[in-house]
């Protein structure tokens, strides 16, 4: 299986990198852009019991991939090679 994990700054947590990126987009003429937030996108191959994969991924996010103080996460699991 392939898992895709998205980690993003929590609402309310300052994201200066997102803000700087937004400014750069504005200076390029993309003035319609608001609320740019930068996060991480993690992909991984996961083996094992498909019924347990959700709970396992949740553990991975809570224990390592995201810092619950400042970040939110969500993930998707699919067949490898299927978009």
């Amino acid at each position, binding site marked *: 299986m392939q898992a895709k994990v998205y980690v993003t700054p929590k609402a309310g947590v300052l994201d*200066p990198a997102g803000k700087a990126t937004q400014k750069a987009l504005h200076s390029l003429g993309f003035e319609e852009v608001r609320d740019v937030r930068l996060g991480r996108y993690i992909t991984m191959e996961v083996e094992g019991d498909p019924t347990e994969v959700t709970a396992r991924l949740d553990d991975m996010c809570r224990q390592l*991939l995201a810092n619950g103080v400042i970040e939110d996460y969500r993930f998707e699991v699919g067949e490898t090679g299927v978009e």
Partner: protein
Amino acid sequence: MMRCGVVTFPGSLDDADTLYSLSEVLGVEAVPLWHKDRGLHGVDSIVLPGGFSYGDYLRSGALARFSPVMDSVVEFANSGGLVMGLCNGFQILCEAGLLPGALVRNQSLLFVCRAAHLRVERNDTAFTNSCSEGERLLLPIKHGEGCFVANADTLERIEGNGQVVVRYVDENGETTQAANPNGSLNNIAGIVNEAGNVFGMMPHAEHACDRALGMDDGAKFFRSIEAQLARGNAS
């Protein structure tokens, strides 16, 4: 005599300066601890030094807490042992859950490297008992991710409990916006845990012990630990 352990993780930078300051400048016993060590070699206090452990991969401090030595460090801290994290060491303590909050990218997006004025908010801690209350200190800072953040409830709790030990101030001792080098909430530069035995701050005490290097206020933090240990560390 104080026997202070200094942990070296892959990517630590300031471990050698910490060992030097402890043994050569302050004249106490400094014990190098390797990240793969399973024990603590009988140390009575621990410093987690600055640097870029594990290349700051994923998040700064996030991977160091899985080093074998950290199991012993956490156990030591949970049984009341004195642990001080400086810069990356502060980040590691937050990631390990030994201190509340987190450290994120400086609001300016710039790496800051300069001297910073600090105000001692509490001189009754194991790490600041050699300072006077409200004392102004000058310490070097050098970090890209030193902006202290916490959710509103946590911040209220930290402030309410008096866990803020040092804040960034201007030359007059005021916590102004301009004196805040990284955007930290309430100008927070360093905090202790509720029990008072784990301390983290972004400024570098270890670089500021030897007068020959320009600043020596950092020595006060190590002298405080020494004094606390001499009293039997009954915090």
